[in-house]
């Protein structure tokens, strides 16, 4: 199995400005979420979470039905539903359509699903210019990086880095004020919106009964992508469905508050098909591409199906003590934090990403804040079990397995346990009382890695066994 990327994680941990940027931003997002759920709303909020969980469960349990309903309703509105098994099929569909229409420029709004499938690279390879239009995504695209947070993709970048980036890539004066930087991006991107032949967006929700998608955002770029170009393509995972429009209300109330502490984001677009008769603007053609990309596999594991409930709010990232220290780029896939730790190994297999479920203190914060009540801590444990089984099967964990069997034997044999206690003598230190670090000679082989970041806790002044014996004696005297 692949080794843990310790070096890269260490690099982040020793980079103070980066560490500070991640820690401060996630801290602010936590505070905003807390402020958006005041005490008088807490009971309602819990009800919404319950309801959202029930709707997601029901929809996924009957997904085939809702997909067929969606297809029929969308067709009735003049749109088309396209299925794709994998990223190549999404890319092939979009490039073919773009070429058919003679499209040279595609404008895109932020979408995790298209990040997942590296859509931009596919389109660029075919010679189709693809521009990200969400400000954070645009910055990341110019820098040639990948997003480090589901909701705030450029969270790891400072305004000074952005000033250099804009000067270099856009040939503008160096500008350090975020307000002016935003204006520069607005100007450049406005041109793109108005000349693009195709707009690509994601979809936060897909409403089966309405044949509609729901897209939420703050900037207005998704509205532009979906209404300025003559063709609009939305790309989403098959798990994004909800049965009815009325179900959307509860999700909207949860999503904005959980993500950025907003009761509602600035724009919520409920779109069904292309423009209708008599309308002046809006796309003339509308396609919805639904991606499997490994989702049906997870759907088939009832104990893990809830991994697909995720509405990508990022709250679990912001509240995770591990994410807040190592940031998004140390996670191997576009989904980071606790949700990334549970879905990445399920999508990509244990072999590659087995260590992710271990990148957690199991504090449970992720599960507590999840707006759709995914039991992330339970899934982390379940995946840990699988990772260890896999290691034992591959023979990789033979020594570890042996060590734990030995440990178990010692723990169940009092005399052996007593004798093992003598090892404490080696660790006693005349000056400090306790060394904590296991002496050099013992730190070899596999133990070396294991002890690299671990100290041994000092033993208590009195042993439990002695206390127990003394107590027994006292009881005996009383009688």
């Amino acid at each position: 199995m692949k080794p843990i990327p310790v070096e890269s994680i260490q690099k982040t941990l020793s980079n103070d400005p980066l560490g500070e940027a991640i820690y401060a931003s996630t801290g602010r997002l936590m505070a905003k979420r807390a402020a958006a759920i005041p005490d008088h709303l807490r009971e309602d909020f819990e009800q919404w979470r319950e309801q959202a969980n029930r709707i997601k469960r029901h929809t996924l349990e009957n997904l085939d039905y809702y997909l067929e309903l969606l297809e029929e309703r969308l067709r009735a509105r003049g749109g088309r539903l396209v299925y794709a098994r994998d990223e190549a099929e999404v890319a092939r569909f979009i490039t073919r359509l773009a070429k058919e229409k003679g499209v040279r420029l595609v404008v895109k709004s932020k979408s995790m699903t298209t990040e997942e499938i590296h859509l931009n690279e596919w389109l660029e390879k075919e010679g189709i210019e693809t521009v990200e239009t969400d400000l954070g995504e645009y910055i990341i695209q110019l820098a040639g990086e990948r997003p480090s947070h589901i909701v705030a993709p450029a969270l790891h970048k400072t305004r000074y880095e952005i000033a250099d980036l804009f000067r270099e890539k856009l040939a503008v004066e160096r500008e350090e004020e975020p307000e002016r930087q935003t204006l520069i991006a607005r100007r450049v991107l406005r041109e793109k919106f108005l000349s693009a032949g195709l707009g690509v967006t994601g979809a936060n929700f897909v409403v089966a009964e309405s044949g509609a998608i729901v897209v939420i955002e703050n900037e207005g770029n998704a509205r532009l992508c979906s209404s300025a170009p003559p063709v609009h393509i939305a790309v989403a995972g098959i798990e994004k469905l909800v049965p009815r429009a009325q179900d959307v209300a509860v999700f909207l109330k949860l999503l904005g508050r959980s993500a950025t502490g907003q009761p509602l984001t600035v724009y919520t677009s409920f779109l069904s098909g292309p423009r209708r008769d008599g309308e002046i603007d809006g796309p003339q053609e509308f396609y919805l591409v639904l991606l499997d990309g490994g989702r049906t596999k997870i759907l088939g594991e009832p104990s893990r199906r809830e991994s697909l409930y995720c509405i990508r709010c990022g709250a679990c990232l912001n509240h995770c003590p591990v994410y807040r220290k190592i940031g998004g780029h140390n996670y191997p896939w576009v989904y980071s934090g606790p949700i990334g730790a549970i879905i990445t190994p399920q999508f990509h297999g244990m072999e590659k990403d087995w260590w992710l479920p271990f990148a957690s203190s199991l504090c449970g914060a992720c599960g507590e804040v999840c707006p759709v009540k995914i039991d992330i801590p339970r899934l982390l444990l379940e995946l840990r079990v699988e990772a260890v089984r896999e290691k034992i099967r591959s023979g990789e964990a033979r020594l570890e397995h042996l060590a734990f069997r030995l440990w178990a034997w010692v723990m169940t044999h009092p005399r052996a346990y007593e004798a093992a206690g003598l090892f404490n003598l080696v660790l006693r230190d005349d000056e400090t009382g306790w060394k904590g670090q296991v002496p050099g000679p013992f730190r070899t082989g596999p133990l070396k890695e294991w002890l690299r970041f671990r100290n041994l806790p000092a033993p208590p002044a009195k042993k439990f066994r002695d206390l127990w014996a003394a107590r027994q004696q006292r009881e005996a005297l009383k009688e």
Partner: protein
Amino acid sequence: MPGDDVRDEILAKIRAATGRPSGGPPPQPPKPLLTVPEVPLEERIEQFSAALEKLSGKAHVAESAEAARALVEELITGRSAIASNSPLLREYGITSLTGVFTGYTDAAELKEACASADVGITGADYALADTGSLVTLSAPGEARLISLLLPVHIALVPKQRLLTGLDELFTLLPDPAAQTSSMVIITGPSRTADIEQILVKGVHGPRMVHAILV
């Protein structure tokens, strides 16, 4: 192009994964959770104004069509404006104000006009009190881009269309797709916090939103 075989394969996989080999209708989905509180109009107006102003938009109340017209006139003084073809705006006399251009029926012309004007004036179908939102349904008289491309957006909405919130909207419109190809809920001016989480308004959409309750 992925075709019906891909569709059938994915649906078959889903049916196998969920143990529904023969498909068929599902059990009843959970009942929608929609609560519509009773809130008097005066209070709704207060809520709406407070919520929109918190987002640095501005709510105005006009007691008559004439008052609304005067208000718009004042707001657009010295600026050029594009008004949608909404019958409501004509009725209020907005479209005949100096500096207001209207009557666009071609998307390309509209885009070009929007590129050089300062203010977009539209009607709104509803407003939501608790979040300070405007709800617009695109229609032949109501283009999508007028509320989006210009630096300032002014929306007029009849007072009795001020709803309590999202739940009332979805109770009134159980399926928005039945009415329109595009329903947009606008909650304050366009904004971003993508650079160091510093709030900047007017990224791609308007940096100022005026809502006039008539």
